[in-house]
């Protein structure tokens, strides 16, 4: 059933840029739908706390629970990367539009004010992406754990399964990666 998504993801991971382009509008439509639902509620921050909504959002995009893929690690890895790429590109674009449009791709270092409070709304996804890239050169698994958790929406248990290491190791990786990223984002 998920052949098409899987094919698109695999094609993209193999360098087919078209494949990503086909996924982008769907993710963006979902983003807008979610954003709208926050707008229509009285207290968006409150909704953020409900895990049900988060689950729902991911289920809408990719039916993770039902994916019994022969190469799970590869699939989840690629899916999380896809989500990272799309969301980061989207953040870059939004910033560009805010600055008056025109240049769609502006230099990364020109972007955004430094993020100070990390309660979701103030998290600068573009900066996080850059920091995550740096972390990968120091410890690639830590960077991967963050990618799977934050962009891929996987639980720690699922990550342990996907990367085939113990849950304890994943917890350690995530804790240390967060500390490092927090310091890096200052």
């Amino acid at each position, binding site marked *: *059933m*998920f*052949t*098409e*998504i*899987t094919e698109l993801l695999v094609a993209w991971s193999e360098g087919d840029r078209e494949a990503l382009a086909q996924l982008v*509008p*769907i*993710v963006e*439509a*979902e*983003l*807008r*739908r*979610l*954003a*709208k639902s*926050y*707008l*229509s*509620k009285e207290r*968006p921050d409150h909704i*953020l706390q409900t895990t049900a909504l*988060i689950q729902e*959002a*991911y*289920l*809408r*995009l*990719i*039916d993770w629970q039902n*994916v019994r*893929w*022969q190469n799970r690690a590869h699939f989840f890895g690629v899916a999380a990367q896809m*989500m990272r790429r799309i*969301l980061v590109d*989207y*953040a870059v674009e*939004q910033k560009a539009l*805010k600055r008056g449009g025109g240049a769609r791709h502006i230099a990364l270092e020109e972007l955004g004010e430094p993020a100070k409070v*990390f*309660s*979701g*709304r103030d*998290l600068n*996804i573009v900066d996080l992406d850059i920091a995550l890239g740096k972390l990968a*050169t*120091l410890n690639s698994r830590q960077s991967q754990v963050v990618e799977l*958790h*934050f*962009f891929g*929406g996987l639980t720690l248990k699922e990550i342990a399964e996907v990367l085939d290491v113990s849950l304890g190791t994943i917890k*350690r990786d995530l*804790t*240390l990666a*967060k*500390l*490092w990223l*927090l*310091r890096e984002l200052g």
Partner: protein
Amino acid sequence: MTPEFYEQVCQICYNALQCEAAQRSGFLDRACAGDASLRKEVETMLAYEGRLDSFLATPALIVAANQLAQAMEESDEILPGDDQRMNGARPILSETLAGSFAPGVTLGGRYLIDKELGRGGVCAVFLARDRKLHDAPVVVKVLLNIWQETAQKTWMEKKFKQEIAALARIDHPSVVRALDVGESPDGRSYLVMQYVSGRSLRSVLTAEGMDLGRLAKLARQMGRALAAAHRQGVIHRDLKPENIMLQSLGDEEYVKIIDFGIATIHDMADAPDNQTTEVVGTRSYMAPEQLRGKPVAASDIYALGVIFYEMATGQRPFNSESILHLYELQRAGAKLKPRDLRPSLPEAAQSVILKALSFTPHDRFANAKDFTDALADELIGEGARLSPPGAFVGPRRWSLILLLVLAALIGVLASSRFSFRDKAGLERTQPPPAAAPDRYLSYSVEARRDPRRNPRAKPFITFENVIFGEGDEARLYISSPQPGFLYVINQGPTQTDGFPNFNILFPGMENGGASPEIPAGQIVQIPSPDRNRRDNWLVFDHEEGVENIWLVWSERVVPELEAVKSWANPKDQGAIRDLAQRVSVLRYLATFSAVRPEFERDEVGKQTKLRAKGGTLAWGMKLEHR
């Protein structure tokens, strides 16, 4: 920083986190052993300990959506459409609405509010009585005030008025008629429409599908109505059986399309071309471009295609809760063609429906009337008249199920986008010679409830119509008055890649594979008594689904199935897991669907007797587990 140094920092950091606060400083002294730069790195990282729980606790998608919401709030961006129906949330209800439109209130000195019928995304709908026209029932539709911003409100008001104007221009007997417009004392525009009595198309849909002649008549009317709306620039955007009303007048049935509630004006001058609208409506009927927020007139044609598919077969071509998944299913095309489910549907009519379900709007019909006229013409052609609707439904329900299983197989094969070459090359080498004697085979199922939970449960003989739970067990007894060669293959539930797994149940895999040869009259037990399974039963695990067990009974060795045998893993219950091999097996088994055996059920002995022409008999039986 080098990876090695970072690892050192990590080690110390993590151990320090496990320390009691009081011991931490002492621990760092010892661990860093006077290395000042190491200590500084560790300490700057540890300084963020308090933020560990909140940082990255929210998935990126939600974070991004929130930021987008914030940006929308700050900017004057207008959000056309609405998604309230989809997430089940209620729009912000306004107190004044309740007051001005409360039961008993008369609007414009003419329309007496009776009750609220429902509330959609942007509108509330009331039933009212026309005081000037003998209290005739009418429907009053009012725009809800869900927008805080003046700009959005103005935009919606304008859109609503344009919709009213457009609706008023559509003059077609199958489109609900706009009767009047007005403004309530609190300044809301409202629209008065014809009240449509009758029943909805939904209420007349059945699992067997509709009479094809009736389908033709209804389709023609629906197409004409939509074409009239499209000519006025109105896209319905929410076509579904619930919005198609049927009214009977004498022997004739008339269609009335209602709820242009979220219809939008697509030639609106002031909405930017590339503005995407929110995804609204019932998704199963939505065209792919509408899922992406860009509905066009051809999206309505797609929705009609889905509706006709459902009218003909009782099923919708695509079903998924996930937008992305639905979109992918749409891209892949209907796995089950309408004729797989309704063989009496003329081939040409099927082609017409599938054309309307084209992924790309451009590939569909350009005009709703052309579409439905083409469909109706094909439906009332020769083919439809020769095979009355429902003729394929066998005397028993399960024969239909088996047929559906076979149809599903053909559907999977026909629409499979796997284009890799059939590595295994399981083309049927010998079509069954017509002169060969008939083949006979009998089988029965023995079932037992989970013996661990029900230690006293006794096995019982049954047909395959029982439903198995986790831990329940089954086995088969197969025999024939003729000698021959038997292959039993289990086809499991469809996997995420769209193809099922297979297991060879017979012949056994031991010692390099046993012989499929069976003497006349011998009863074969499956799983074989010598197999190393729990008490030699097939045990159902927790996974839900349907096991299709294929019995192939041939007068000679079947080379294709000997090849299949060689792929099976003897250490894994004869499992075949390789994708290419699974596709080959599926293709091979599907070749048998054209030659279905005749069968007879012996109600006393719970035995099914099969008879087939030619040298080979193949039968798919279905065991369901939940």
